[in-house]
């Protein structure tokens, strides 16, 4: 299996290069030089910023040299400085990253512990009232725009009932709290964002889990288990579940970019100082260096998430763990 993991990591190299190429293409999408467009569209982009862009991308040179000089800088995480406050773009992104990652990890945990049991129960009791209710719930959650749910929950639980804070990740007097108090305070602030971030995927994944379980129940080896004289519980929760979970690991891995995308929206709605909101701010102020940095880093995070899912999968599936 170590071999498999090494192989997977090595395979990431061309993907990493691809990510930088696409990011590079994005910045060159504008007709003419990026600097022209930057200065036209945003007077804030000063002469100094323009020179910086020129320096980072080497815009007077041929395009492949531009790419090579850019990637050399990117390799050392030098994405240039923010046009807004002159700080290194990577610093701005990195200080915003932990909260985004935290919310996403919490969401995945929530998804795991809610979606999977929900899906299993629906599959096992197919056609029951429980199955039907959860199906309706899932369909509605799947169709509801996340930001709208966020607004509704915010105005109901936050504004009307006052149960949870509606903005930010900590109270104003945060500094005075004890450590436990701080954790509780942040937790309190994160209830709604985590809920909103996970609802869509939660619905989707419980649906997949249900389908996966139903597929497995019809496999030949389940018939074998019946013929052995195993009880229904053992058959469902031992023989079927272990197989049914395998595709779900992949699905959760694949849902990571979607979750990160969601961060953009709910961080804006809940006013959370994470990567997503920074990205939106940077787009509004045409802060290209920060935008490019955010783009590359978000892809790297996805890559990392996928790698973890892959390793988990290879551990769970003996057909990969022990090769063919």
């Amino acid at each position, binding site marked *: 299996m170590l071999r498999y993991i090494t192989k997977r990591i090595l395979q990431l190299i061309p993907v990493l290069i*691809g990510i930088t190429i696409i990011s590079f293409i994005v910045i060159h999408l504008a007709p003419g030089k990026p600097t022209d467009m930057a200065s036209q569209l945003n007077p804030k982009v000063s002469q100094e910023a323009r020179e910086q862009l020129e320096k980072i991308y080497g815009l007077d040179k041929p395009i492949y040299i531009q790419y090579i000089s850019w990637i050399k800088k990117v390799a050392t995480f030098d994405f240039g400085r923010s046009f807004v406050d002159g700080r290194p773009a990577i610093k701005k992104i990195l200080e915003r990253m932990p909260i985004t990652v935290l919310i996403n990890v919490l969401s995945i945990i929530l998804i795991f512990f809610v979606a999977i049991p929900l899906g299993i129960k629906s599959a096992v009791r197919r056609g029951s009232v429980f199955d039907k209710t959860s199906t309706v719930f899932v*369909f509605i959650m799947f169709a509801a725009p996340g930001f709208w749910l966020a607004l509704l929950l915010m105005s109901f639980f936050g504004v009307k009932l006052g149960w949870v804070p509606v903005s930010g990740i900590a109270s104003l007097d945060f500094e005075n709290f004890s450590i436990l108090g701080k954790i509780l305070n942040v937790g309190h602030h994160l209830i709604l964002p985590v809920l909103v971030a996970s609802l869509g995927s939660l619905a989707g994944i419980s649906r997949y889990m249900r389908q996966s379980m139903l597929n497995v*129940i019809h496999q030949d080896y389940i018939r074998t288990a019946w013929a052995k004289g195993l009880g229904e519980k053992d058959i469902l929760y031992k023989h079927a579940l272990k197989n049914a979970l395998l595709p779900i690991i992949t699905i959760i891995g694949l849902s990571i970019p979607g979750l990160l995308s969601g961060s953009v*929206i709910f961080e804006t709605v809940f006013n959370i100082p994470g990567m997503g909101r920074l990205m939106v701010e940077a787009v509004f102020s045409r802060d290209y260096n920060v935008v490019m940095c955010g783009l590359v880093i978000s892809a790297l995070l996805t890559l990392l998430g996928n790698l973890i899912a892959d390793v988990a999968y290879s551990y769970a599936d003996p057909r990969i763990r022990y090769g063919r």
Partner: protein
Amino acid sequence: MNRLTLFGAGIILILALVAIFAPFVAPYDPGAIDVEDALLRPQASHLFGTDLLGRDIFSRMVYASRIALSIGIIAVGIATLLGIMLGSIAGYFGGKIDSVIMRFTDIMLCFPSFFLMLSVVAIVGPSIFNIMIIIGLTSWMGVARLLRAEVLSLKTREFVLASRALGAGDFYIIVRHLIPNGIGPVLVSFVFGIAGAILTEAGLSFLGLGVQPPHPSWGNILMEGKAVMGVGWWVIVFPGIAILVTVLAFNLLGEGVRDALNPRLRRR
């Protein structure tokens, strides 16, 4: 056909009619500002109330349905065509062509779509046209993978070999055998894709980086309504329901199409 599928199809039909005949359905000019009528509650003269500028929300939503549907269909159309082309080429020819196309697909899948779209918007600027293209260019990967997988399994099927033995060329086989047989799941993903694109457009517009005011879009009505939702719940409730119902309708239709294409033949 199942009742839910019919329900979905019905909603889509109604929506399409509303969008086509928007000028006849909408009681007011969607851009008509009337400060005296600002933030009116839903009532007979303003079915869904008015916004901060006194514009009729129902009329704005009617016009916004045009944008939602056209962005949904055109963006997903672009994505589907791209996906069909890349997926069938990769699957059929295999080898180096396949690895290049699929590696490219993997790379595109690494970008969280909103980060990628926002970056592009930052550079080319937001407009209805740009949003369609951007959504289309960033959401073809699923279709490509789907069709490739179909083609991979179809191309080793014996009717394809038989066709080659009869003297058929590559293009003939792709167009005559592979795409017709592999298109089913693509069709399903087309319908689901429209739902996804409508959600994406709403999200971008909500952030202020999609359809720009004064063009009404369900997303930007919500964006503008966010500021006043404390005083006027109707400003955010109705457009949200419109998105939800539309997306739900497309999802139900998608499930219906999928079931129709996959009769469950396998039984224990």
